[in-house]
């Protein structure tokens, strides 16, 4: 019935082919994504940047299988998302994708540790204890692991969210403005943590952000304006990102 969608050994962790997504119809038609083709390399930290309404979040939601598209194709590894039903998409999200949202990342009734192991618990498989120990020690929460989210600071909550995304060793992690609600110190801690995950554990991360400083932690930045891919930047710095943004008139 279902073929377990697992990414094959391709160079990209995910890629899109001529993806178009529009909302509404007639006069109120809004094209959120216009013929976007982009690939996200394996074991790299990619940032998607763009001004508000540029479609960057929509792109991420579509690639992560949370939203549907009008035309084009999206692949996670070599699995074509358009061929998957809700059950298969759920399984894909659970087993091969990790998520970090801007806020409300954790289930309030579960402890920090339980939140980290949640995807594995949902899949009904035992976490790799050694890997879990590694993550937990990297996340640096120590004794707060048995606390509920309400007893953690915003930065700590986001660290737990990243740890959760890492714990199931997904093929790709999508982070949607993960530092958007944090003060700059907590924000840079999170970004550093994600950077470490890419460098040390060869994790693939795609992050949506509008903050040039956050983007500077990435290996590569792709720019989106009005639903169109307008360029990219390798090994960005905050300044080079701002520079490029200015050129797009954003």
């Amino acid at each position, binding site marked *: 019935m279902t073929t377990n969608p697992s990414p094959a050994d391709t160079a990209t962790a995910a890629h899109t082919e001529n993806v178009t997504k529009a909302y509404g119809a007639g006069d109120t038609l809004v094209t959120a994504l216009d013929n976007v083709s982009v690939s996200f390399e394996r074991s790299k930290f990619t940032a998607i940047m763009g001004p508000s309404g540029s479609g960057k979040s929509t792109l991420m939601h579509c690639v992560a299988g949370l939203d549907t598209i009008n035309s084009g194709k999206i692949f996670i590894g070599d699995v074509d998302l358009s061929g998957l039903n809700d059950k298969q998409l759920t399984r894909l*999200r659970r087993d091969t994708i990790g*998520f970090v*949202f801007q806020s*409300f990342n954790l*289930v309030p*009734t579960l402890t920090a540790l339980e939140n980290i192991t949640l*995807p594995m618990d949902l*899949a*009904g498989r035992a976490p790799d204890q050694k890997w879990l120990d590694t993550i937990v020690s990297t996340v640096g929460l120590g004794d707060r692991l048995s606390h509920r989210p309400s007893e953690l600071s915003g930065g700590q909550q986001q660290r737990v969210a990243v740890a959760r995304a890492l714990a199931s060793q997904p093929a790709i992690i999508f982070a949607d403005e993960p530092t958007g609600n944090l003060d700059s110190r907590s924000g840079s801690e999170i970004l550093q943590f994600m950077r470490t995950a890419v460098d040390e554990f060869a994790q693939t991360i795609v992050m949506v952000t509008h903050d040039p400083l956050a983007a500077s932690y990435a290996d590569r930045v792709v720019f989106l304006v009005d639903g169109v891919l307008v360029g990219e930047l390798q090994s960005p710095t905050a300044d080079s990102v701002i520079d490029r943004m200015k050129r797009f008139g954003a």
Partner: protein
Amino acid sequence: MLKVTLRGLMAHKVRLIATAVSVLLGVAFMSGTQVLTSSVSASFDKVFADVYASIDVVVRSTNEVDTPFGPERTRISEAVLPTLVGVPGVEAAEGQVVGQIRVLDKDNQPLVAAQGPPNFGLNWLTSPALNGWTIVDGTSPVAASDIVLDAKSAKEGKYAVGDTVNVSVTNGVQPFKVVGIAKFGKLETWGGAQAALFATSTIQTLVGEPGMYDWISVAGQNNESQTQLSDEISKVIPAGTEAITGAEFTEESQSAFQKIIGIFSTFLLVFALIALFVGSFIIYNTFSIIVAQRTRELALLRALGASRGQVLRSIVLEAFFVGLTASIVGVGCGVLLAIGLNKLMQSIGFSGPDTPIVIPPVAVVVSLLVGTIITLVSALFPARRAATVPPIAAMRDVAVDRSGASKLRVAFGLILLALGAFMLWFGLNGNSDSSLQIIGGGAFFVFIALTVIGPVIATPFASVLGWPLQKASRITGRLARENAMRNPRRTSTTASALMIGIGLVGFIAVTAQSVKASTVDAINQSVTGQYVVTTESFGSTALPQSLAAELDEVAGVRVAAGISATFANINNSGKIILAVDPNAISQVIEFTDVEGSFASLGVGEIAVPEKLAEEKRLKIGDPIQLVFIQGGATTLTLGSIYKTEFPIQGPGWIISTDQFNTLVPPSQQTFLSIYIKLDDTSAVGVDAALPGLKAVTDVVPGAKLQNLNEFKKSQTDQVNQFLQIVYVLLALALIIAIVGVVNTLLLSVYERTRELGLLRAVGMSRRQVRSTIRLESVVISLMGTLIGLVIGIIFGWALVSALADEGITSFAIPWSQLVIIVIIAILAGVGAALYPARRAARLDVLQAISSD
């Protein structure tokens, strides 16, 4: 603020559905019950008015004995008649004889079941001024073998003029010849009753006594009022008789019937109130949740300058609108329900022929008031909480859930619990006239107390109940358990609604089981016979005394002993008096002598049980005065103080059959039951005796032959029947409680939209979402059920202990029934979660995670 209220109402209308439904159901039950009983009552009022319309004055005996079937009066002699005819202004005077007879169908089975509509036998009045019946076919009854049937019975029994019809009478089955078919005015019969008309002397022998009437009806010449005529007649009638007007007589009959309907109506009303009480929990919960969800909105209003009073009023007003609307619709549904039930009752022949629906204004107003007030009161606490929302909450991110585990709450709850327990104890053990009300109030306080303490015990309870779920279904069980624990107040209120219904079910089940166990024990310990013959009829339609003699003759029977019953006033209060052949009955039922000798109880003597003797300080040789319905005052000597485990009807006054037969007319000399002891009591012997016994009892209509096991079963079946009626009536309360569970789950799902979105995003499948909601529902349902059952068992135990003196000596818990209740509760929990779980599983992930 009115505008805000109305807008709020419209915005939350979906969330208020459960509130409306719970109010509506309760109000519909309440108003429907009252409309139905009023209509039935009115239709019977009309029947009585029609039947007695031609009577201006009634002359009857002054001696009256209270019986469970209503007051019974001594008959009046026909010798009074000539005196009456001589009174100026009297057009006609005739004696009336009415009694119960059984007309049999062509298969010799009763045409009307014992529990069906009444079946009368009465005399044909010859005076047109008094007789409301008209012959539509054939002639009136004259000869001793003549019978006239009402048109309805003739139709149902397919009898025509000239047919022979069998009638079951005191001394067996007697054939009559149908000489006529009669209608009462335009109606086929009196309000659904079966009526058979005979010549006066015939019916006197069948149900009364020769030369005697139940009363004498007098028709005036219409030149003076009923009162004047009655006064005139009063002057000439002998001592021991009285004259009352036809209007008074009609009213007396009507009010006697209204009293019975009234008891029935109150009984139903209790269940309507239980349903509304359960509904109040749902109202409370809905408003609490709405207030919690609207915290920011309310805070904004406060920040913009709304006063606490305005916020409070806006919530209360919202409750008022919901309560009033639901109550109005509820009354409408109640009337429709009453119409439907009335039609149903008519179709089974159990009501007046042309029953118009009577909608008493009082019932409508009271139902509306009760529905609205309950809604208002239930919403008051949440409204007060809403009013205390500080303006600053508008700026806060999350609504604060104040947990319910305060010391004050525990203390208050314990005080209420103590009060409730005391009232229960007092009601059960005291001798107050209003014991029932006190017990009801006690139960109410216990339930309220548990609801108050609920939030404190909800968390540990959910934790314990959820533990196996967590073990079995891992993450979904874990989440369900946490969800059930996260809002203890809400969980406990939802569970409380169920607790009340289940508590009452458990209480009734335990009590019934104890009654059954006690009955079976009593029969086991006291009955030494092997067969029992019973009947569901009383008086002239019960078992003929000759049946015992015939059974005695059957091969293998050692003894057959019957028990008769009649009523007499002792110290001016109506008591049931049993009659037995002491020597014979002692061989089939164990009577132990405490003083005197039961087995040799003779004419002129009476026996009492030990307890009654102690209570009344009676000793052997004491004179006891009894006023029988027909036999007049008789003084008997206390000849025996006995003890028996046998479940005797009534207080246990027993006389000998010989004595009994001197006190009641031959038409009433019947047995209610006959106990048979065999020579060979082995299983083989018992089976072998059956055909012989059956041959004798089969020809007696209404006689039921049972072996001891069947007898025990039929005794306990009566309890089961009552149990089923109560269960059906409690079902409404349970349905409302389940609506409450659905409601809570729906609102919780709504509240947890983002959380569900997150779970779905990180890989929770729809099936897992559904299973989480389902398990949460099961935890809540189980909590309500288990607490309810514990309460029910405790209530049952309290009642059973209090009834130990009444012969309820065993306390028995119907474990298998309780297990079934728990299983049903789990299934109900699963069922309640169906819709909320589907809603939760269908949430659009993207919308859910981006919703605010």
